[in-house]
């Protein structure tokens, strides 16, 4: 897999090119909600959809979508992963962007599907789909050039950049750029922000002691940041960190990026 270096010096997989250049707004997009958002954070999915629509873009949510197949793929069960993936392929037939509110599931579609379908009859179609996949914050900031108007009270926020968002999707600046537009938001640095939170899908239970140690350190870093709210673009990381903070009696609130932004621009709490 070719991985040209990005401008800020990290090695990333290729950038979403087929998705329209800056300022070129597509009339409509597909939204791939992901099974984690669907099940645990549907409000975040809805917020993501509504924020896209607020930019004048029509959002298509195929009801046939389920799971991208990443869990079996990461566990080494590629046949089952392909089976899950095949069920998603036909849902995104039109040549328009597929927006995903997750770096991890986004990377599954964009980076790993082409690998998963190498030599399969769908290979070509999968490559075409992968080229259209774009992570939500990247789509908002870079493709749509969204301008956000903050209506919330002043708040201290820190941001957890998820590993797959950064290292597989190459989305580093977009979430911070969006947060930076919110006038009432003070974005505080998260110590050791580049370190994994310890979720890793099945890793969280298969290697429970390691996962616990990692998320323990991450939670402490969140507390040390002095933020009232932790924002992240990936549901897995967020549930992992939130679950730990809550169990430890922390008062830090954990919110998915789109939901946090949606509440700020509509003047809801947080």
């Amino acid at each position, binding site marked *: *897999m070719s991985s040209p*270096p*990005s401008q800020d010096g990290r*090695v990333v997989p290729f950038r979403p090119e087929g998705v329209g250049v800056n300022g070129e707004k597509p009339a409509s997009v597909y939204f791939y*909600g992901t*099974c984690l*958002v669907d099940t*645990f*954070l*549907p*409000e975040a999915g*809805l917020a993501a*959809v509504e924020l896209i*629509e607020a930019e004048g873009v029509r959002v*298509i*949510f*195929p*009801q*046939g979508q*389920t*799971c991208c*197949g990443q*869990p*079996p793929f*990461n*566990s*080494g*069960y590629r*046949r*089952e*992963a392909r089976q*899950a993936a*095949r*069920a998603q392929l036909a849902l995104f037939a039109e040549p328009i962007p597929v927006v995903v509110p997750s770096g991890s599931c986004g990377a599954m579609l964009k980076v790993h599907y082409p*690998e998963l379908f190498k030599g399969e009859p769908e290979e070509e179609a999968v490559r075409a789909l992968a080229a259209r996949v774009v992570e939500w914050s990247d789509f908002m900031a870079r493709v749509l050039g969204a301008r956000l108007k903050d209506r919330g009270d002043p708040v201290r926020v820190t941001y957890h950049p998820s*590993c797959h968002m950064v*290292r*597989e999707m190459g989305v580093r600046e977009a979430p911070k750029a969006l947060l930076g537009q919110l006038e009432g938001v003070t974005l505080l640095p998260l110590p050791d922000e*580049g*370190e*994994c939170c310890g*979720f*890793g899908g099945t*890793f*969280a*239970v*298969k*290697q*429970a*002691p*390691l996962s*616990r*140690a*990692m*998320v323990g350190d991450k939670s402490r870093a969140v507390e040390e940041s002095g933020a009232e709210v932790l924002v992240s673009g990936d549901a897995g990381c967020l*549930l992992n960190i939130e*679950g*730990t903070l*809550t*169990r430890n009696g922390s008062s830090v609130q954990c919110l998915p990026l789109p939901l946090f932004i949606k509440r700020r621009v509509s003047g809801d709490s947080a």
Partner: protein
Amino acid sequence: MIPDAGRFLRESGSALNDGNLRRNLHKAMTTIRGRRNERFSELVDAPALQKINNSIKRRALADLPALLEQLEAKLTARGVVVHWAETTTEANAIVLDIARRRGVKLVVKGKSMVSEEMGLNRFLADEGIEALEADLGEFIVQLADQTPSHIVVPAVHMSKGEIARLFKDTLGEKFGEGYSEDYTEDVAALTALARRVLREKFQAAGMGVSGVNFAVAETGTLALVENEGNGRMVTTVPPVHVALMGLEKVVPRLEDVAPLVRLLTRSATGQPITTYFNWLSSPRRPGELDGPEEVHLIVLDNGRSSIYSDEELRETLDCIRCGACLNICPVYSRIGGHAYGSVYMGPIGKILTPQMAGLSEGGHLAGASTLCGACQEVCPVSIPIPNLLLRLRQEGGQPTARGRALLRGAGSTRKMGEAMIWKGWSALAERPAVYRLATRLLGMLGATSLGRAGLGAFGPGRTWNLTREMPRPASRTLHDLMRTRPQSHQDQHTSE
């Protein structure tokens, strides 16, 4: 349950609970990461260099058989004896043979991970030959009767105090009363003490053993980087020098070494260049005042040619053993190297061990990763470690035909229970109506406190729930919210 998988879980668990180890590692890893980042930030375009290094190694490996032959021819012409060892047993036998022929009683050794693969010290000891580590870190680890916990800084798991105590307790007993000194934590004094031991041994040794960082095919030159001068001593002072190298270390041209070294030392120790850089090309020639009388190179396979024969897995052999992936790894930096139970640890160990020792022995290591990708990001030769981990997980759980042919223990990490879970998962994923029903049911369960308690009481939920609140399944899924919301931006074709 594979016994070794259980072992890793136990060992990593107890490493995590070892406060002393955690402190030592945290301190060392923070320092070494900082140095590496500083050196990298000085480079005009580090990622471009990483790419260049990757292509140097890719090109070298593409031509590996021819390059090895060229290397052998060049070295032989200059009087270096080249030996080929398919297994570590063969490699050990070659070393022993040379030692016997020359009547060697004492071997001094520079740092070499290949010698760790061979278990050379123990092997020689069993044959009545003493092998003494001359790299300070390895010297410490040997004194403590341990194995290296890091491929570059072998005693990284120990604190200054622990090393001071070790010296006080063992040096006099092992090397004579002259080396029994008062307890001190002064690093300079401890180093001086070790140096005093080693100086004497360098002069007494009948054989010096070293590793090899790069072997240049066109010139027949062995390159060795080091910081303590021990590498120079073991390769020049004893009458016989035996260099050990894995067969992947050869590069075509002299000029290939420069970019590789530029990132090797920066990645390993955060140095622009090491204190010593040794170029070795022949035994002492007539008229020369120093150097060994005999030089041997042992080229070890030990599973490498099998790795080599798979295009994707071959990238494992790009590794130049800098240890940067260990230092950045959220797993390694919390448990150190011993918990892995293998010669190579950390991310590189997770891809090497399952291939060298077989998936039944080391397959579980490929699973012990969050796939965070930090290792690939810092790798000076851009090895796609996460992708290789994924490939090895596949070969462990649902092997390909190639995997079956190449990897010992292919399919051995497959567990019936897990296989069933993924079958069920994919069956659900390809039936949207059933999926929607299932997620809705989960939501109903999440809406009641009894249901939530149930989710956190069994299996994976229970493990999660031990230290984390269970996430609460929403009573209405995104599918529901999108289907029923008033604005009708919804997709018209909701067919499945």
